[in-house]
Structures are given as C-alpha cells and as structure tokens.
C-alpha cells in the first residue's frame, strides 16, 4: 500500500510540480497517473522512490514513512521501469534483468533461476534471448525485458513511467494485454504513468487525473468517464466518452463462450444442419485441437463436400483480454458481423457478435452511463 499525504514539491526555480497531493493506492491495485504533459504525474511517481525529494508532506509505503528508509535500499525494493531506452546497452538481457538481484547480493544460482522465470513470464525463450544485447532485440522485446527487469527482485511495488511508450500501436495493445494477464498472477501494487487516456482506462483500477500539479480527480475509470468532477475532467475525457467507455468492457464479458463450431473434416451437410438449427448464416471452423481456422458461410455450402474445402481461412481474431474497442476495430476491418475470440494458445474461446455489442451499449445507455 502506498499513501501520499499532502505532498508538495516545489523545484528550486519556483515551479510547483505537485501541490498538496493526497491519495492512497491499495495493495495489488494499478493506479494510473494521468494528465497533460507538465501536470506533475512523472514527478509524483518519482517522489515515491525518492528520485526527487519532496518539499513537504509524507509518503508512506506499507505504513512506513519512506524518508526513514535508506535511499538505495528503498529503491531496490521498488521495481522501476522506464521507456525502452532505460535498458543498459552494454549488458546482456540476463545482466539487465539481474541488476537489482546483484545489488541485493543474491547468489548466482538463484539469480539465474529468477532470470529464466521472468523471461518465461514475458513469453520469451530464455535460451534464445538471455545472452542477447538490447540492440539485438525488437522494440516490443525491449519493453518486455524492461518490465522483466523491474520485476527482478520480486518487489511488491512497481513504478512504471510510460513503459509501453515508444512502440507501434499493435505491439502496444499486445503488451498491455499481456501485462494485465501477468498482473492478475503477480498482484503487485503499481503506479503507472501515461498521457494516453485509452491506456489509462484499460490499465487502471483507479486513475489519478492531474493538472498543474493538482490532483483533480482520483477515481475508477468508469466514474472518471461518467461522473467527471469538473469541467477540466470533462474536457480531458472528451466528448467521445461513449467510445472510450468501450475501453472499460472486456471481450470475454460479452462473447458467447460456446458457439456452434464445425471441424474441417466434417461434411458440409453437418454445417448446413447446424446453421438451420441455430438460425445463423456462418459458423466458426476449428481444427481437431480446437484452434481457430476460419469461417464457413451459408452461401458457400453448395461449393464442396467437406467443410475443409469450402471454408474461408482467417487470421483475424481478438484475444479474450482485449477491450471492446480493440475488438470492434478488428471486426470492422473484417467486414464480418462476428469475431472469433481466442485464448492464450490460440484455442477458440468464443465468438463476439455485433448484436451482443449493441445490446451491451443499449444497457449502458439505460443505466445512464452514456448519453
């Protein structure tokens, strides 16, 4: 648990970076610090591990005043991830990840085990990547290593400064999904800095919206969107908050978890019977192992004997952790009113239909969450 009490930071040149900020981050929660550039969000993150000393106020970490802990000791117990440039170019992936364990004096065997563990957690093959240098990695891989490094000594608290900042949008969404999955397993207390409201809504359990050094609203993403405290919040959230609200809903909440499916080696006739029974004009095709392969359509049923001959292979799908507007944009690009949803190992997890999305939006409108 992290608690800030009336924290104020005035820089020597007179700028007030933080003005009397008071808020609390619960154990295991992700708190996103959000706001326009220069609002003090990064400074707020850095005062927690004392990279920046505060002018007045108190910061408690698990009830202990952070100014009473030795600086270096404090930082070794708080994970720290910055944009990918933060990796040391002269160190291998392994050496980067074991930075804090080395500082803490862990024995070699334990460090090696930890590095392997973390690379596996990040879905990177330790044998392949351990001895590479950052310059031999892709942008997304570097970000992964950066996150792995911040988890090096298994800290209970993580500070992340736009950790998915400098990468392309697709890899970014992938990393966000992966990170949420990991967070469900590791349950760290996380302070996450971003200027991207979409990212904030997706990643945060709570969002601290800041402006000119002041904490304007500290709330759940839904409340920030639908119960803005004042004009600034309203403006920052924007008029398209209905669209942003899609960010609050995860695909798995809306998808149909047991859709009718056919396998490639079944006759087309079986598909026709099933479509007639269900009143649908397309069906998901899977392989024997349950992996998603494509679709078979009503109009194609005459064209062959077996499903395998008439199916339309497809690689457009969303993962179960995707949020609704990501799924929607994939769906729109496929020009199909259903989207296959897959789990971690590409097995079919369900189907999301456009009707289900509309229905959910209708309910939200009734509850007054969107206008």
């Amino acid at each position, binding site marked *: 648990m992290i608690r800030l009490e009336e924290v104020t930071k005035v820089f020597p040149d007179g700028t007030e970076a933080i003005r009397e900020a008071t808020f609390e981050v619960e154990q295991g929660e992700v708190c996103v610090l959000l706001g326009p550039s220069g609002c003090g969000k990064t400074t707020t993150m850095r005062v927690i*591990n004392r*990279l920046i000393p505060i002018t007045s106020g108190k910061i408690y970490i698990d009830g202990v005043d952070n100014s009473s802990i030795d*600086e*270096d*000791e*404090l*930082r*070794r*117990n708080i994970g*720290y991830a*910055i*944009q990918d*440039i*933060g*990796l*040391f*170019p*002269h*160190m*291998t992936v392994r050496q980067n990840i074991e*930075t*804090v364990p080395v*500082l803490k004096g862990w024995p070699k065997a334990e460090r090696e085990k930890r590095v392997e563990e973390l690379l596996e957690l990040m879905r990177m093959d330790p044998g392949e990547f351990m001895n590479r*240098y*950052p*310059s*031999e990695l892709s942008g997304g891989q570097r970000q992964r290593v950066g996150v792995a*490094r911040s988890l*090096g000594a298994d800290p209970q608290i993580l*500070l992340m400064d736009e950790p998915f900042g400098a990468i392309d949008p697709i890899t970014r969404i992938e990393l966000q999904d992966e990170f949420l999955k990991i967070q469900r397993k590791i349950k760290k207390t996380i302070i996450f800095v971003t200027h991207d409201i979409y990212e904030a809504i997706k990643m945060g359990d709570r969002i601290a919206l800041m402006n000119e050094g002041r904490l304007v609203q500290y709330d759940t993403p839904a409340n920030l969107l639908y119960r803005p405290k004042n004009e600034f919040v309203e403006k920052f959230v924007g008029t398209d908050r209905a669209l942003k609200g899609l960010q609050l809903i995860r695909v798995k909440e809306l998808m149909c978890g047991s859709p009718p499916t056919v396998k490639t080696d079944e006759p087309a006739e079986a598909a026709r019977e099933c479509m007639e029974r269900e009143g649908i004009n397309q069906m998901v095709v899977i392989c024997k192992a349950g992996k998603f392969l494509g679709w078979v359509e009503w109009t194609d049923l005459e064209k062959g004997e077996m499903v395998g001959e008439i199916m339309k292979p497809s690689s457009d799908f969303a993962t179960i952790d995707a949020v609704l507007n990501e799924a929607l944009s994939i769906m729109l690009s496929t020009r199909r009113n259903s989207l296959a949803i897959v789990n971690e190992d590409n097995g079919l997890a369900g189907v999301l239909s456009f009707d289900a999305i509309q229905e959910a939006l209708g309910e939200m409108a009734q509850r007054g969450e969107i206008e």
Partner: protein
Amino acid sequence: MIEAWQFLMRNPEVVAGWTLEHLWIVLVACGFAVILGVPLGIYISGRGREHIADPVLYLAEIMMTVPSLALFGLVMAILASLGLRAIGFTPAIIALIIYAQLPILRNTYTAIRQVDPAMIEAGKGMGMNERQLLFKVKLPLSVPVIMAGVRNAVVMTIAIAAIAAIIGAGGLGKAIWWGLRGARMDLILVGGIGVSILGLLADAFMSRVERWVTPKGLRM
C-alpha cells in the same frame, strides 16, 4: 632515399634500437598519462565539481598550446632548479605526460558527462549508489570515447617524442637530431620515416585495442 635505405641495411640493429627506445618512451609516458588522466577526468566529472573541472581542463588546454620545444626547456629548467637531473629520460617523460593529458582528460570528462541521463536514472531508480553507478553504468558506456582519447594521445606522443631527443631522451628523434647537425640526409630520413611509420602502425593497433575493450553490446 637510397642513402637512407643503405644506412638501414648496413645498421639494422642500430635503427631497431632507436625504434625500441622510442616505443619505450611512448609506452611509459602514455601509461602514466592514462593512470593520471583517467581518474582525474572521472573525478572532475563528478556532480558539484564543475568549478574544478573548468580550470583543470583550461590548464590542460594551455599546456597543449605551449610549443613542445619550449615545454621541454621548461621542464628542464624546473627540474634543474629543484636540483634534479635535467637531461635524459625523466624530463622527457614528464613533458610527454603533460602533453598527453589533454586528450585523455578531456575525453574522459566529456564521455562521462555525456552518458544518457536515462541510463543514470535507470541505475539510480534501481538502487545503485554513486560508486556502482560509476563502475556499472557510466564507465562501461564511456569506454569508446575514453579510448579514442588514449589513441589520440599515443599517436601524438610518438610524434612529439621525436623532439625529446634534443634533451637526450633517445629514440628515433636521435637520428633526426644527429642528421640535422651533421647535414646527414640519410639519418634525417631514417628518423623521419621511422617516426611516421610508427605513428601509422600505432594508430591501426590502437583502433584494434579500442574495439577490443569496447563492451560487446556497444559495438553494433
């Protein structure tokens, strides 16, 4: 030219002796210059030491602008006034160390000051103290630039050491000096060409060393 070749053919062991002597002078001078310059450069690059860094670098620059002949004379004069031997190897080495200071000192200082602030923040944020930050982050990242300074110093010292023969330090400069006094063209050429070849070889060698000591991840 032909006379120079003939001289070399007739007295190979004499020329080899001068060359080795020359190399020895350069090695000793540069060795001391590195031992002195790198730590000093690191020291003045520290936080809150800007007020020391400026005058130190300025002084090194001034030393560079003193003509080498005058510097040798100056070192002789100072040693003599202290009652020490003012001729030969030692005064030559002292003058050369002073000369080699600037490239080493300046490159060390700039290299460390120019380490990406994000690297320093990452190190600090993970709990490195000042010493760990220096040895684990700043120095390894500075190696290429520091080595470029050392390479510079070595090549320069080879050239200036030729002048050191005037105060009796020996080396290939001796051939040039004798040649000039006795109007012996062959000697002048042997010394002059020898120093040039030595400089080129040293430059090539140092660039290999530079690559070799650069951390692997930085070599791309």
